[in-house]
């Protein structure tokens, strides 16, 4: 303590203090006499201004204390408290000159209830998402069986990305992986995740997206419990798999996503078919192809054989019939044969051009011609 204060000493010639003098002096007394301290009480009249500053009253059964928590301090908290919350606050007692009001400038606020502010913020966000229908199971979209392009929203340097790339390279290297970098931890994580999820929608041909990070403490996963991030996941035009590496806690991001995986590796498995299984499946398709064709070919061979047999049967019947006719026709033809006539003693005369000479006029004196008899041909000449 400094020099004792002269509470009745006049500060002006008129013997009266100005208002400013009094409040300034009161602030000095209070700030001097009361060091920063923890206060316990129930929060009432909570109000958050657009500037981000919080104003509220802390009270117990018989007294109350006005409090302010600047945005620079409350920004670190998971969410705003609600009236009725039992809380511990750490703050600096002071006097607010403009209002002449005694108050506490709060720099830290902890809920004394189970789960505290984290839980509170989470429940409020969950209620808002539920009200907007974003937690409806019917909203969940099926994952594509054979993705061509997979977007991965995570830290470019994290173990999560390494795990995802290892799994997708083994199971489904056909898909192209597009890494959309985002910080997944700390104050900027929320903004970056929202931005990255929006960027996913601008990439052409993405079939499915994975958003996540490796395991961490509850505080580390805070961004994935952000209502804004959850809404960005819901807004994504392709199915989203949430992979926040934490077995026990389900994050808001998990609840809104189309599928949830316990680890980034599990998310990569959910996002991809296994090519080893597919190759086995293709082998089965191949043998079905071969079997079906050989069955088809066998049917064709059977049919061909049946046709051939029928053809044989009908041909031989035909030959039998025509054979009999041929014999009869043969006899007839034989009787008409000119050779038969020659055998009876006739002869045929033909000219040099092979024409048959039938009349005297065709046989002038001295003409050389041929004469055919039954067993051969002789050359002749007209002498008379």
């Amino acid at each position, binding site marked *: 303590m400094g020099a004792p204060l002269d509470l009745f000493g006049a500060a002006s010639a008129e013997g009266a203090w100005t208002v400013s003098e009094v409040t300034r002096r009161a602030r000095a007394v209070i700030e001097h006499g009361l060091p920063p301290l923890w206060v316990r009480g129930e929060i009432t009249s909570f109000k958050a201004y657009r500037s981000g500053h919080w104003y509220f009253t802390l009270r117990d059964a018989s007294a109350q204390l006005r409090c302010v928590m600047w945005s620079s301090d409350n920004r670190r908290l998971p969410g705003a408290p609600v009236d009725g919350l039992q809380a511990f606050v750490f703050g600096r007692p002071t006097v607010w000159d403009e209002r002449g009001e005694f108050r506490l400038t709060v720099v830290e606020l902890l809920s004394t209830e189970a789960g505290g502010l984290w839980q509170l913020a989470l429940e409020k966000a969950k209620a808002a998402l539920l009200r907007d229908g974003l937690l409806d199971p019917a909203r969940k979209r099926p994952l594509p069986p054979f993705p*061509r392009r997979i977007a991965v929203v995570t830290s470019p340097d994290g173990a999560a990305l390494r795990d995802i790339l290892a799994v997708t390279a083994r199971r489904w290297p056909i898909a192209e992986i597009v890494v959309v970098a985002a910080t997944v931890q700390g104050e900027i994580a929320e*903004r970056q995740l929202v931005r990255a999820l929006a960027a996913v929608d601008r990439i052409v041909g993405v079939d499915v997206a994975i958003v996540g990070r490796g395991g961490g403490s509850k505080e580390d996963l805070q961004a994935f419990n952000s209502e804004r991030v959850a809404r960005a996941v819901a807004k994504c035009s392709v199915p989203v798999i949430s992979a926040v590496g934490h077995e026990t806690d389900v994050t808001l991001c998990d609840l809104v996503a189309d599928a949830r995986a316990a680890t980034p590796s599990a998310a990569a498995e959910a996002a991809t078919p296994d090519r080893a299984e597919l190759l086995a499946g293709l082998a089965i398709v191949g043998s*079905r192809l071969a079997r079906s*064709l050989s069955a088809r070919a066998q049917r064709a061979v059977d049919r061909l054989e049946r046709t051939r047999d029928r053809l044989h049967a009908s041909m031989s019947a035909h030959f039998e019939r025509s054979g009999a006719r041929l014999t009869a026709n043969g006899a007839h033809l034989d009787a008409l044969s000119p050779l038969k006539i020659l055998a009876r003693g006739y002869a045929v005369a033909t000219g040099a051009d092979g024409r048959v000479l039938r009349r005297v006029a065709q046989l002038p004196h001295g003409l050389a011609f041929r004469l055919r008899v039954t067993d051969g041909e002789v050359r002749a000449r007209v002498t008379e």
Partner: protein
Amino acid sequence: MTGAPASNFAKEMERLEEIVRRLESPDLDLDEALKLFEEGVERLRAARERLATAEQKVKHLLERPER
């Protein structure tokens, strides 16, 4: 970034299934069966080759996150 990095595998598998189904149906003439078989074998070969030889491509979205 434009175009798909890989043709549609789902459609490929559907077509293969369809070919096998049609080949297994009894009322199909041999010419068509042979054509389907040839197509099936070719698609099968292509699919197997793609699965066996594919190598993962990784791209990084060039947009850097703001700080």
